[in-house]
């Protein structure tokens, strides 16, 4: 029997959330003042939750490892945020956003959660605008929208290519206001290293002050983990350097089930790796595929410069394989196709692990149009090129600039080199409708939970989910739990559960310093990343996954024998911080492979080579795998699988084809 109760309210899909809101237990203002909530992480989910809960009267403590809550990696999101406002009068609705998200997730997300997300999406835009977030506007003063992948309506709100930054600074300003009012206590440069549970309930955390190295005990009636995704298990990703799984993993080891760990989103258009010094990868917005053509040479190992390769010797492989969608196939399909060409020896650039994204055709086409608009008859080829470049610069100038900054090449003159990179993790801590994990009192919000994106996330939906969870979901759902906690007095932190949790953390720190090995943390992290990328990346198979599990176990053993952590525990020590994070990645990596091995189907970002159609497309198995895989940690790197069956009542499940 499954231990999982998703707590989806009864009733039709349109009524679940409104009925829930009118019947969920409330906490009166006087009681809120004595209830303490710990929020770990200060990105969109954490900042918005902390600010909203403090406004309601709860006592809130916020923790982040950066020097300021404004640095959280939500800040790097470029494209936009979806909302079912239908300001464009193009037929959008809550139902359509719900439907697109379920379909985009390849029918592996929970209907009830996703419908609620679509319902609250419009309020997010209202809230952000009221905070002074300068979203893009039209000349009439109204908000502007743009298109994004996987949808046929214009529902994406944006602030140039810095939407994440502006939304996060909005949530940050709301948070700082509460800090100024004394309603939130902020702990920056603090890292959560353990969860404290008492009688099965989450009651606090152990955090390390990263400047002094001191371990601190903090009590809370509830603990909210808003700690983002775990893409850095691959070492190279578009995540920030500090992004990590530690908070979620410690929670997992204290009883929180981990949902769908193998669902990873690989984004097709990133600047490729330039050498083994590389520390992170940079995304180039998906919008570039609107006008660019992707190709590789027809001859394997061709060393000519791209502009020397004649048209007939180029393979526009996406246009060849997917004539209907061409260069605009979805992210997972485009990524796999690039990998296939490079693996077969057709890759370009010094590393041979890149493909070309070429703007020559677009520059020519736009040049001709602009010449006509300007009334220039018989333009010279040089004039046409200049006109074309001007148009491309207006549309994509900042991206072209960023590319040149990183690669030193001018993309107006030579095709860009791109390659897929790890970008987002759909998996995360399993949560019920209340966003509560399997540990009572412990919640997971935003990318840290598994709930809304199924096996593949649509563009511009991550910002929506983070803010939905923080502003409009948790303020209601936390009442269901805290209403029963009003008699619980703050537990003194000399309670043995706190003492023991701190001891565990201290003993791990001592262990790191005692190894006195020869290899740095990065050395192990890079090797783990390579195993994960080669065997649990864009394409997976049984043999590779089984090998990966063995290799990760061996690497973990080596890590604990040969790691060198320099410096001291009682000071700012980035090596010690990284050691703790990589130790957890070394365990998570194994679980990701186990989950990928268990899922004998291909869906969304999870592609098992054994399960594909004759044309090489993902072959989903709804009869046997229409479930959330929630893993229970049994200790000593052993796990037990629990299944939450996915029921589709509002949407008819169908195949996903792009031919």
């Amino acid at each position, binding site marked *: 029997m499954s231990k999982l109760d998703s707590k989806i309210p009864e009733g039709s899909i349109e009524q679940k959330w409104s009925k829930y809101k009118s019947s969920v237990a409330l906490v009166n203002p006087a009681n809120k003042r004595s209830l303490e909530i710990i929020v770990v992480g200060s990105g969109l989910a954490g900042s918005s939750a902390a600010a909203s809960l403090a*406004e309601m009267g709860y006592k809130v403590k916020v923790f982040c490892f*950066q*020097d*300021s*809550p*404004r*640095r*959280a*990696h939500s800040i*790097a999101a470029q494209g936009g945020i979806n909302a079912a*406002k239908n300001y464009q009068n193009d037929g959008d609705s809550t139902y359509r956003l719900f439907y697109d998200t379920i379909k985009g997730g390849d029918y592996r997300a929970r209907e009830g959660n996703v419908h609620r997300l679509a319902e609250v999406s419009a*309020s997010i835009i*209202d*809230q*952000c*605008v*009221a*905070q*002074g*977030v*300068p*979203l*893009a*506007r*039209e*000349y009439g*003063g109204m*908000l502007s929208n743009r298109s994004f992948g996987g949808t046929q309506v214009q529902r994406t709100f944006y*602030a140039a290519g810095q939407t994440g930054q502006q939304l996060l600074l909005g949530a*940050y*300003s709301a948070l*700082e*206001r509460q800090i*100024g009012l004394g309603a939130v206590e902020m702990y*920056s440069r603090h890292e959560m290293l353990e969860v404290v549970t008492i009688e099965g309930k989450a009651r606090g955390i152990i955090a390390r002050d990263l400047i002094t190295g001191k371990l601190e005990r903090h009590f809370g009636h509830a603990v909210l983990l808003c700690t983002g995704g775990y893409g850095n298990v691959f070492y190279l990703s578009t995540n*920030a*350097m500090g992004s990590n799984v530690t908070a979620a993993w410690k929670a997992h080891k204290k009883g929180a089930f981990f949902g769908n760990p193998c669902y990873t989103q690989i984004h097709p258009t990133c600047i490729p790796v*330039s*050498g*083994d*010094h*590389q*520390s*992170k990868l*940079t995304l180039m917005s998906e919008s570039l595929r609107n006008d660019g053509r992707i190709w590789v040479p027809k001859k394997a190992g061709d060393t000519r410069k791209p502009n020397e390769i004649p048209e007939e010797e180029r393979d526009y492989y996406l246009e060849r394989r997917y004539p209907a969608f061409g260069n605009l196939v979805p992210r997972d399909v485009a990524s796999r196709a690039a990998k296939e060409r490079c693996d077969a020896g057709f890759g370009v650039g*010094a*590393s041979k692990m890149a493909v070309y994204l070429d703007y020559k055709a677009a520059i020519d086409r736009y040049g001709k149009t602009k010449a006509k608009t300007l009334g220039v008859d018989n333009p010279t080829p040089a004039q046409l090129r200049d006109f074309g470049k001007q148009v491309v610069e207006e549309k994509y100038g900042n991206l072209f600039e*960023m590319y040149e*900054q*990183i*690669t*030193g090449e001018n993309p107006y003159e030579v095709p860009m080199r791109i390659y897929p990179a790890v970008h987002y993790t759909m998996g995360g801590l399993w949560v019920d409708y209340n966003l509560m994990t399997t540990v009572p009192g412990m919640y997971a919000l935003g990318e840290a939970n598994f709930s809304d994106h199924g096996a593949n996330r649509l563009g511009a939906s991550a910002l929506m989910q983070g803010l939905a969870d923080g*502003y409009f979901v948790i303020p209601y759902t936390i009442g269901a739990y805290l209403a029963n906690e009003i008699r619980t007095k703050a537990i003194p932190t000399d309670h043995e559960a706190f003492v023991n949790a701190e001891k565990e953390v201290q003993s791990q720190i001592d262990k790191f310093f005692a190894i006195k090995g020869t290899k*740095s943390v990065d050395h192990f992290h890079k090797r783990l990343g390579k195993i994960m990328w080669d065997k649990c990346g864009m394409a997976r198979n049984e043999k590779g996954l089984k090998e990966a599990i063995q290799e990760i176990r061996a690497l973990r053993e080596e890590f604990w024998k040969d790691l060198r952590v*320099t*410096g001291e525990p009682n*000071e*700012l020590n*980035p*090596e010690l911080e990284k050691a703790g994070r990589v130790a957890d990645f070394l365990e998570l990596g194994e679980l990701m492979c186990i989950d990928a091995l268990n899922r004998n189907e291909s869906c969304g970002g999870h592609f098992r080579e054994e399960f594909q159609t004759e044309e090489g497309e993902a072959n989903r198995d709804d009869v046997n795998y229409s479930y959330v895989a929630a893993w229970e940690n049994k200790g000593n790197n052993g796990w037990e699988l629990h299944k939450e069956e996915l029921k589709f009542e509002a949407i008819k499940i169908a195949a996903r084809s792009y031919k």
Partner: protein
Amino acid sequence: MSHGNMKITLKVWRQKNAKINGQLVTYQLNDISPDMSFLEMFDVLNEQLITKGEDPVAFDHDCREGICGMCSMFINGRPHGPKNKVTTCQLHMRSFKDGDTIVVEPWRAAAFPVIKDLTVDRTAFDRIIAKGGFISVNTGNAQDANSLPIPKHDADKSFEAAACIGCGACVATCKNSSAMLFVSAKISQLALLPQGQVERVARAKNMVAQMDAEGFGNCSNTGACEIECPKGISLENIARMNREFYVANLKD
């Protein structure tokens, strides 16, 4: 493939903690690739130091794509190095020559005390924002987003000011360690929007008061902050802040 052939001499500020004096320490690096970012060169240095059993250089960084504002190195006398409108993490070694000597120091300002090596404490910025860098609208208070039309010109100006990443380069480059570019960017962003009008007076007074209390200096219109700002925040914002501040005091 990653190995380049650049030889670089680094003079790096090393300081164990806030209580102990620091000094510049010289390191030699060979095989630096022009494709490396400046921080990746520091990764190479740190790897070498760890191999030798020495303490690696502590420096702040996170997103490494120029938006989080965490990286903060004072390179050859300029915050974020020799290129304009680029953060340290987006600066690449091809901007230097083989054989170069590069001096790297932390941000220097009384209000940004050194924590260790190149890492400084910038929480003063957060405390200034907490005094008024917001619009007091609780979650759930908002009206429909399109019920308040905002001229595109104002919205764009507001956005340009809001692009500030809070890195502190403006303070680091200013001979007075003034934080006026940072503070004025936030005041401008909100003063340009209709939503920001209600709290305009209190915002200007409270944020400026906190700025002074933190020990940041005054503005003497040298304009270095505007040149060194990786996001191109305009000096115009300081003029607007001054106006906001004078008007606020007149209204009092």
